[in-house]
């Protein structure tokens, strides 16, 4: 009986060691913000900007010719975090008879974090809060507030220094935007660059 007890104890210890190792490797594998290959220390402000990015709902797409987001980023315990602090939108229109009377993002900052799914890294933005007011006599949504809320996940590509938001990136990160009771699709490829301490430096996530 005694040797069996020892075997059980040894097995438990081995399992504990393996679990610890697994957690440690997970922790070390958490994606972090890097500039020129070195992990960011302190904070930085990055800007993602797409030339044409669209929000689709109700069979209608609202496109903005320039769709920007500004994120204050930092690494916390080795993991990339951040907060979206502004979202200026330029020249927005729809592919229907609706005009965009007003569009405004609110309640900043929106928390953001880096996440690895399989072997890909994603920027996940939470608490998205955008109000859109459509106009136009022939617009079925005329005069009605469309309140876009939820979480958005965008695929990060280190080679092109872009974040791409599309249905695939939403599916991979389990994120969803919603407005007027319907799911909202966000499509856009956002080249990203630093604007404070690391201007002109290569931005990567790993």
């Amino acid at each position, binding site marked *: 009986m005694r040797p069996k007890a020892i075997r059980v104890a040894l097995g438990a210890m081995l399992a504990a060691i393996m679990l610890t190792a697994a957690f440690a490797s997970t922790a070390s594998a958490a994606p972090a913000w890097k*500039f*020129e290959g070195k992990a*960011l*220390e*302190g*904070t930085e*402000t*990055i*800007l*993602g*900007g797409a*030339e044409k990015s669209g929000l689709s*709902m*109700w*069979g*209608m797409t609202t496109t*903005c*010719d*320039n769709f*920007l987001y*500004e994120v204050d980023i*930092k690494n916390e315990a080795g993991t990339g975090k951040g907060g979206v602090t*502004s979202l200026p939108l*330029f*020249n*927005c229109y729809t592919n*229907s*008879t609706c005009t*965009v*009377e*007003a*569009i*405004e993002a609110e309640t*900043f900052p929106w928390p953001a974090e880096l996440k690895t799914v399989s072997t890909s890294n994603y920027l996940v933005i939470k608490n998205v809060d955008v109000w859109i*007011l459509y106009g136009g*006599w*022939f*617009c*079925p*949504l*005329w*005069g*009605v*507030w*469309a309140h876009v809320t939820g979480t958005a996940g965008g695929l990060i590509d280190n080679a092109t220094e872009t974040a791409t938001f599309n*249905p695939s990136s939403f599916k991979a990160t389990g994120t969803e935007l919603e407005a*007027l*009771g*319907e799911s909202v699709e966000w499509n856009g490829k956002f*080249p*990203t*660059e630093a*604007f*404070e*301490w*690391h*201007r*002109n*430096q*290569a931005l990567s996530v790993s």
Partner: protein
Amino acid sequence: MAPKPGAKRLLNKPAKATSAGVFLALVLAALMLLGCGGGSSDSSSSGSTAAETAGDAGGTGGTGGASSANGMTSGANGAEKGTGSGRPSAGSSANGDQPSAGSKHGPRVAQPKGEPEPGITQQQRQEATVASMTLESPSSQASSAGPQALPATYTCDGKGTSPALRWQGVPQGTAELVIFTMNVQPVEGKLFFDWAVAGLSPDLTEVEAGKLPRGAILGRNGFGKAGYEVCPPSGAETYMFTVFALPRKLSPSQGFDPSALRKEVLNISGNVGLLALSYTRG
């Protein structure tokens, strides 16, 4: 919230700001050289200040401006790189913390054209209709993507009866409910009504498929008939079902013009429930 430096750089117009900044920097530098006698002990800080001024001005210049600012100031930002604790310091060396390795990188975010979309005005906040009511259809079917599906039986490919609708959240003080169903995409450039029903009691919380309660008033749909009809030519179409809560009765006559009633409804109603259903034909 105060605009952030990054956004400032990108949002403002580059050319004028940059040239103004250069001019200002030159003037300041000239004044300092003349006024301070060009003392060597101050020259580096003077240079830094001038460069910073130029840098700031250039920095307000959008992506292009930021780019030129980088080249122009050559580290005048004095960025305490990586510390995250401070802003560009006034006394830092003009060549101090330039991200030298980054010269291979130019600006990647495109310079926006024009001005940002206007924010929401107080008047718009007050006047716009809020989707505060929930609207659903027990007749609809799940869809793999996009809005739920409208089964064929509720179109001209089937019986053509109206689907069942159920709603919640009718505000207190509502005098009448009105239903509109419209194509999301216009038909021949105009809003197309598939169904318009007025005169519904505020106590009502649903309508059954193919039925309407007593007192319901039917408007003329896009096909010219007083009733429900969904019949797209081909392909996919999304239909928007809406139920508006009216604070006073409008009570139009049978066969009313839905376009005219909708205008009145939008003028007085602050609450709506919306539901999108899609149908693909052929």
